[in-house]
């Protein structure tokens, strides 16, 4: 209590949230009023007469003689009452089959000044499985006081002593209302049932102040546009992020996705809090997260809460299911690309649960049908066990392993790529009290990557390959960390988040081998050196509701880094604020400084994601960024939501995609081989979504500029980033005529990529001195290429159309089947364009354009059984 008092003195009193109502079956009934204009009393009486629903109210609290005009668009009881009562300070409670109009309490500060305050706290979980729900809302409608669950489903809400009605809601789940009487701090775990959510009665859906700008996507939301997730029949919930503005999915032959002009290594991927260095299968096309184990993800690209560090451009915070605590259930899927299965259930009911998923590609026959040059295999296994030690303590053990092998045969070269992740984590959730929560985790993440590039050298006269050379490179990275985070919420208007982390990372670059063929046995590589580094992190932030219109979240992330004798301290201030213009509209702003100690350098000439990670050193300084963004969001009651955001980001000490770079770490000079420079990007992002009847449409558009500048490249002048796509547009449409049937399509359009190509050649220096090299197999290629600027050309624009349909049937109480069919890349368009230049001394120039795509027009069908 003392803490609360101090907090209240230090920070402004929390004011009541705006009017919100309670949802229930009565409110969701359809209703059309025959009376289009009348007094509130007349309209309510007509409603009672026509609907047969009893409405109780005390006329003293209503301006019953006030005349209200209806628009005619009121189709449900909730919308009707919202329009009739929108000027009144009342809310609607549904109780015992009746609707009760009750007055809104005055602001808490006036009424509760002398009342004792207690906390209701606990977890919000899914009914049956006891799966914690992330970012579920718990709110007292009368006062507007409310909070969200954290990433472990935990909440705490302080209320005055006495009876209260709480409304708990979560996207994709039926909203629930419960009554409690608080006489002391009270632990209450609340369950929600999956089901069709009811539209909110009052225009309050957009009124809750944003706590962060991150996009939270749960399993239900990720599947709103199935065509956006399907990759040739394999449903990947992580792919739904690609539909968001500011995100681009680069060509299938590269590594995954890019955010706001950042490089691929600037996206930190956390799987249940554990860092994953390459979270993809199939060269970035498919995430390592199996749909059957996916629970929720948050994509941070505008604001970065202080607990995060290490990714300049984005943090993908992905959570998987704990396992069903009540009953065994499972799911199996068979598609063109892979077969997968998952089971989960209680080892000890309501005490210990396990979740196991397995997926293996079927790509050898299927993908070869689509592209005979491409051969890819992958698998992943995920096991999780959750054990409740008691009601305040929970342990979670997470183990994942996955591996990819890809071979690409082309006319002039062959590529071999093998990579894999091994992850393990132990998580401990602990409730310290009614208003505080702690999570401690120990994580291990190991990644290894083997890349081979084979090419022939041709005889000058006969064009017959005389030498077949193969570059083989192998590297690995192992990461260990222990971290703990605390959340303390002494009052509803303030929350303290703080914690720390100790991390140790070991990078092992191995020798580069030159051989006739691919070297797949890692024992044949020699360890060149080890590159270990340590990080010590502390963070702190406050989340403060200044009043019911303004929320601020200042914070700081401090980091100390040690690599050999290079020490680096980084203080990274973070700030986020949201301001409510009215019940529909909000403004929000964010400022972040971020530091990243891992650099990913690549051999771009190899054409595949040949990623080699290197640590920051005295020469290769840590990557740093400063970013700012300003956003606007609108959400109204008719299913329209709009958002617009402007951003600016500056990045220093970038290393990725160095032109001409060759980082074969076979000596101690690797630092000097790396060029560092800076980059900046800025742009505008728009997103609009509309839901009506059975339709749902989403449009996301990004206008951006992305630059790089390296002192030793392009004569020090700035040049466009390779993925400087000026315009990116995603249009997504879903049609759901019935609950068990949906049809959807996604169209993606983006400007082309920047690329470099020589403009002219000039005579060779040695040739000018009349020097010949009889041992040079390329002696005939006696000229020097020249280009005047980097990335001055652009490829043609990209587009892709995907379409699919899902149909589900139930054949028993617990058994359902889902059939998915569709076409990936309906138009058969390219996912990357490569301009190449070929020439020989006796021949002619040939500028060739190759259109690469991992998947051509790819019809698919997949079957899922859920039991």
């Amino acid at each position, binding site marked *: 209590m003392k803490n609360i008092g101090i907090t209240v003195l230090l920070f402004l009193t929390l004011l009541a949230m705006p009017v919100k109502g309670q949802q229930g079956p009565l409110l969701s009934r359809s209703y059309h009023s025959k009376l289009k204009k009348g007094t509130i009393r007349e309209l309510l009486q007509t409603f009672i007469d026509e609907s047969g629903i009893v409405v109780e109210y005390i006329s003293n609290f209503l301006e019953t003689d006030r005349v209200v005009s209806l628009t005619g668009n009121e189709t449900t009881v909730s919308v009707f009452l919202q329009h009739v009562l929108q000027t009144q300070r009342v809310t609607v409670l549904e109780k015992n089959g009746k609707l009760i109009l009750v007055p809104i309490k005055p602001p808490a500060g006036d009424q509760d000044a002398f009342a004792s305050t207690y906390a209701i706290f606990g977890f919000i979980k899914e009914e049956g499985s006891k799966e914690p729900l992330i970012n579920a809302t718990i709110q007292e409608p009368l006062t507007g006081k409310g909070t969200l669950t954290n990433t472990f489903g935990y909440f705490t809400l302080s209320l005055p002593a006495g009876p209260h009605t709480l409304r708990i809601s979560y996207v994709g789940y039926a909203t629930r209302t419960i009554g409690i009487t608080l006489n002391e701090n009270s632990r209450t775990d609340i369950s929600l049932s999956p089901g069709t959510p009811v539209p909110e009665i009052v225009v309050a859906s957009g009124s809750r102040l944003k706590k962060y700008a991150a996009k939270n996507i749960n399993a239900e939301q990720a599947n709103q546009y199935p065509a956006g997730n399907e990759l040739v029949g394999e449903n990947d919930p992580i792919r739904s992020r690609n539909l968001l503005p500011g995100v681009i999915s680069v060509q299938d032959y590269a590594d995954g996705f890019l955010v706001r002009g950042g490089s691929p290594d600037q996206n930190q991927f956390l799987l249940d809090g554990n860092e994953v260095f390459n979270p993809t299968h199939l060269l970035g096309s498919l995430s390592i997260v199996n749909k059957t184990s996916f629970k929720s993800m948050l994509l941070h690209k505008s604001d970065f809460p202080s607990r995060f560090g290490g990714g300049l451009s984005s943090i993908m915070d992905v959570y998987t299911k704990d396992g069903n605590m009540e009953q065994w259930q499972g799911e199996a899927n068979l598609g063109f690309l892979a077969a997968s299965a998952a089971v989960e259930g209680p080892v000890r009911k309501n005490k210990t649960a396990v979740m196991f998923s397995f997926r293996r590609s079927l790509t050898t026959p299927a993908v070869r049908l689509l592209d005979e040059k491409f051969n890819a295999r992958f698998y992943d296994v995920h096991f999780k066990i959750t054990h409740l030690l008691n009601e305040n303590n929970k342990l979670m053990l997470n183990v994942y392993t996955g591996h990819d092998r890809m071979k690409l045969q082309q006319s002039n070269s062959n590529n071999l790529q093998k990579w894999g992740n091994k992850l393990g984590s132990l998580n401990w959730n602990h409730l310290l009290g009614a208003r505080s929560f702690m999570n401690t985790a120990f994580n291990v993440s190991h990644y290894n990557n083997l890349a081979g590039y084979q090419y022939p050298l041709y005889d000058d006269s006969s064009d017959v390959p005389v030498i077949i050379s193969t570059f083989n490179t192998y590297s690995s990275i192992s990461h260990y960390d222990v971290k703990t985070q605390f959340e303390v919420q002494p009052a509803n208007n303030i929350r303290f988040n703080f914690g720390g982390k100790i991390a140790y990372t070991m990078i092992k670059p191995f020798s580069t081998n030159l051989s006739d063929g691919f070297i797949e046995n890692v024992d044949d590589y020699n360890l060149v050196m080890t590159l270990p580094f340590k990080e010590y992190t502390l963070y702190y932030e406050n989340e403060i509701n200044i009043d019911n219109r303004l929320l601020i979240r200042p914070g700081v992330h401090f980091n100390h880094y040690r690599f050999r004798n290079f020490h680096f301290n980084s203080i990274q201030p973070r700030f986020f604020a949201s301001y409510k213009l009215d019940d529909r*509209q909000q403004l929000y702003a964010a400022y972040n400084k971020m530091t990243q100690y891992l650099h990913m350098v690549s051999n771009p000439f190899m054409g595949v994601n040949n990623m080699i990670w290197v640590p920051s050193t005295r020469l290769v300084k840590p990557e740093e960024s400063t970013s700012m963004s300003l956003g606007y969001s609108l959400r*109204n009651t008719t299913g329209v939501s709009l958002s617009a955001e402007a951003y600016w980001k500056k990045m220093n000490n970038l290393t990725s995609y160095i032109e001409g770079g060759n980082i074969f770490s076979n000596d101690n000079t690797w630092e000097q081989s790396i060029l560092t420079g800076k980059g900046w990007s800025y742009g505008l992002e728009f997103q609009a979504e509309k839901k009506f009847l059975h339709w749902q449409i989403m449009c996301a558009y990004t206008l951006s500029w992305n630059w790089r500048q390296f002192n030793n490249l392009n004569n020090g002048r700035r040049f466009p980033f390779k993925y400087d796509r000026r315009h990116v547009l995603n249009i997504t449409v879903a049609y759901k005529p019935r609950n068990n049937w949906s049809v959807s399509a996604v169209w993606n359009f983006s400007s082309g990529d920047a690329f470099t190509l020589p403009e002219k050649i*000039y005579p060779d220096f040695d040739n000018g001195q009349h020097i010949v090299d009889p041992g040079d197999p390329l002696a005939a290629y006696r*000229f020097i290429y020249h280009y005047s600027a980097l990335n001055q050309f652009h490829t043609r624009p990209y587009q892709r159309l995907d379409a699919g349909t899902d149909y589900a049937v139930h054949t028993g109480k617990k058994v359902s089947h889902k059939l998915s069919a569709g076409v990936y890349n309906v138009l058969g368009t390219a996912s990357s364009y490569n301009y190449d*230049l070929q*020439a020989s001394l006796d021949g002619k120039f040939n500028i060739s354009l190759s259109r690469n795509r991992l998947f051509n027009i790819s019809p698919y069908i997949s079957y899922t059984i859920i039991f």
Partner: protein
Amino acid sequence: MHILHTISRNKQIIFLLIVTGLLLPAACKKNPYSTHKLSNTLVVLTELTAGDSVKIPIGKSTLIENNNTVSFGTVNNAIVHLQDTLGHSWLIPLNTAPEFSGGATSVYSNSQILQPNTTYTIEVSDPELGTAKASTHIPPAFVITEVDTLREIYNDQEMLTFHFTINDVPDTDNYYIIEALKQVTKIYRHFIYRNVTYNYDTPDGQALYNRIKNEQPPVPLLTDTIPTNNFIRLNLLTFDPNADNTLLNSTTGLFRRVFLQSSVFNNPLYSTSVSVITKNFISDSPQMKGKVLFMVKSVSRELYDYLFLYEKYKIDFGTFPSSQLSLPPGNITNGLGIFGGSFRYVLTYYFDTF
């Protein structure tokens, strides 16, 4: 505060579509391939060597366009002026000797001997390609001492290893390039008959010799070697950790040139060793017979930088796509290539029998 309140929801969507529609045409303006207007330029590829005469290879670039032939036009009408800092100026004429013709560059030369520690400026004017300019400084003279050689075998390759000490010129940053070439020599066979010298390698000379060769006293057939302007590259190997070659990532370990900077070794007497692959020391082919030149050069900074990235370019060529190659940085204003200077210390060896 409530701008969008005044817009109906249908209008909001229409507004968004209009905004999108306005922005999209800009995307369509992107050309898949540039329409930049490009033109050819003069090319200068010169290493002015102290103690040597002036030889300036000049050529022109070729634009890369589909179906353009990979060949180079000649520049035979250029006006080439060379000037030193003392105000001496020379007009350098085109050398039309057969040994300089047929290449990708035309050679402009005169017999003026170049001086060490001197700055030279060149101006090349071509009626078609315009005027290109550049300047360079030939470094001061230096010597190498304590030269020792050793025959070795490394990775089944025979090598001749040179141990030597560079006597670095103090108080300046010097840039050293070590290379080995075999200068092809022309064999000149002749005989002297009645005090007249005859060339044996002509039909008449050979016929005369066959007639008189048995006369008494016998007429000896004499053989002489004449150095040509053609050279054969000899590959090198170095284990010197101070050499910049450690940055070149040669997968074979062999180099065409070894690069050393005095700022790295920072010692007036710097001992190092470089091995030369002996594979082409001896040849049966008359076109490859010659003398081996082991050269330690002190070069101008711009020549060092150019040749270093040129070396990297040669290593990466064929492995990297053309767009990923490191381009040698030239110093020619309004042109391409390099105009550099060097002072060289040469050790000469003969291994061929003539």
